[in-house]
């Protein structure tokens, strides 16, 4: 056994957009253990159920994170709607699906850019984020916001999206797909990129299950599970296959996310073509009474929204289990045995969202 030293990594580090800290135990350049440390910016948003009523909490849920904003709002509304037996209209379900998939696209493209930046491929980083702008433009057209959309409400949506606008999105999506093909080809085939990703941070399908992983991180190890198959919103009507890879390394994680971007475009296209007319909101009567846990597939993986209410205006409990939180134990496992130079890429491999984790 060589001499061991402990190297602090973060909370401020060029590769980390948000604060997370790791104590890396090293033998020469090899990491033999990693102890994570979070909680630098914990906001206690769940505690706001004491001060904001169940309708106002939609805004709070949307503000858990700027990237997964739509998903958080959706998960919260879905749980409350289940408790209150509110069946949203078909149009609402399809519009929610479209917005959710646009969110997934921009989140995954953001991640691809950050990954390219982490291994020093600056032009690939800029190309990725240039394409992402087109998705954000569509979201801005549809909702008026680029980060927080505030289009969700319990029982439906705050505003409709005109059919003509959605048709125009089809052309934009075509352009985005063309751009993405070039970018994704580089991510998946470039020799330099592959040399940084292949065989790095391998986890088997048994390990990811044991460690409670979720999302692309799980599917990259060959586990075929995607919470969209639970059939919420309009996903029951949409034809899509779960994307997996069997290598379980960082290349496989990149592959799954890249393919999911293209798949999201196909889902949006289907949803726009099948979009029914009708109302966008249902009446909400009374206050929620009961408990429910919704599980949805956020871009980073499965997120859980547990709501408990006792018939009053203010909820008893809102609890959000975010995908990054679930993937932290697995992150520490992938770091064991890796080279110090691979640590930034392995941290990025779970697509960490500290804003979600520190809700």
């Amino acid at each position, binding site marked *: 056994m060589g001499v061991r030293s402990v190297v602090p990594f973060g909370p401020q580090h060029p590769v980390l957009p948000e604060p997370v800290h790791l104590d890396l135990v090293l033998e020469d350049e090899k990491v033999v253990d990693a102890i994570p440390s979070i*909680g630098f910016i914990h906001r206690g948003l769940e505690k706001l159920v004491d001060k904001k009523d169940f309708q106002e909490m939609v805004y709070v849920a949307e503000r858990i994170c700027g990237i997964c904003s739509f998903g958080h709002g959706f998960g919260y509304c879905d749980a409350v709607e289940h408790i209150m037996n509110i069946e949203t209209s078909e149009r609402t379900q399809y519009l929610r699906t479209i917005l959710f998939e646009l969110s997934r696209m921009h989140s995954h493209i953001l991640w691809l850019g950050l990954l390219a930046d982490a291994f020093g491929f600056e032009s690939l980083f800029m190309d990725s984020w240039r394409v992402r702008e087109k998705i954000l433009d569509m979201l801005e057209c549809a909702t008026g916001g680029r980060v927080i959309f505030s289009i969700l409400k319990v029982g439906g949506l705050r505003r409709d999206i005109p059919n003509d606008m959605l048709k125009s999105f089809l052309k934009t999506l075509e352009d985005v797909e063309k751009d993405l093909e070039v970018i994704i080809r580089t991510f998946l085939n470039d020799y330099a990129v592959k040399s940084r990703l292949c065989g790095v941070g391998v986890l088997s399908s048994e390990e990811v299950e044991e460690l409670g992983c979720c999302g692309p991180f799980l599917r990259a190890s060959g586990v075929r599970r995607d919470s969209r198959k639970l059939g919420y919103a309009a996903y029951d009507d949409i034809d899509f296959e779960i994307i997996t890879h069997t290598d379980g390394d960082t290349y496989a994680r990149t592959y799954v996310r890249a393919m999911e971007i293209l798949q999201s475009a196909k889902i949006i296209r289907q949803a726009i073509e099948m979009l029914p007319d009708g109302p966008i909101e249902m009446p909400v009567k009374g206050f929620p009474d009961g408990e429910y846990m919704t599980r949805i597939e956020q871009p980073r993986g499965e997120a859980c929204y547990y709501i408990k209410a006792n018939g009053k205006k203010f909820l008893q409990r809102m609890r959000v*289990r975010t995908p990054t939180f679930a993937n932290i134990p697995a992150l520490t496992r992938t770091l064991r045995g890796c080279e110090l130079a691979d640590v930034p890429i392995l941290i990025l491999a779970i697509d960490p969202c500290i804003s979600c984790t520190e809700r």
Partner: protein
Amino acid sequence: MERELREIEEDTLLNETQKVHSEGYRLIQICATTVDSGYEILYTFGKGYDELSIRFLTKGEKPVQSISRIFPPAWLYENEIHDLFGIEVENMTLDFRGGLYRTSVKAPFARKEA
């Protein structure tokens, strides 16, 4: 998707969790909720898309047993419960001793005594 909720006694937590583990479930989440008589602790497990939850009520006066030796990722959820609710958890595989979250108020989600 099937959903099941098992209400258990606090003393039987480890036995029940072991049973769930041997049935092939994975850990999805652990959550505490403040109720009039103490805290409800809800453990959610998954197998495929199916969901199984076990729940017990604790007054929070004595430590809750950690399930992290049965389900390894549980240490993160248990440290969170400790830091936010002030519930002591015994035998965690990784114990931050109150240092997971840097909160300005100690145990901000804990029950306010009347």
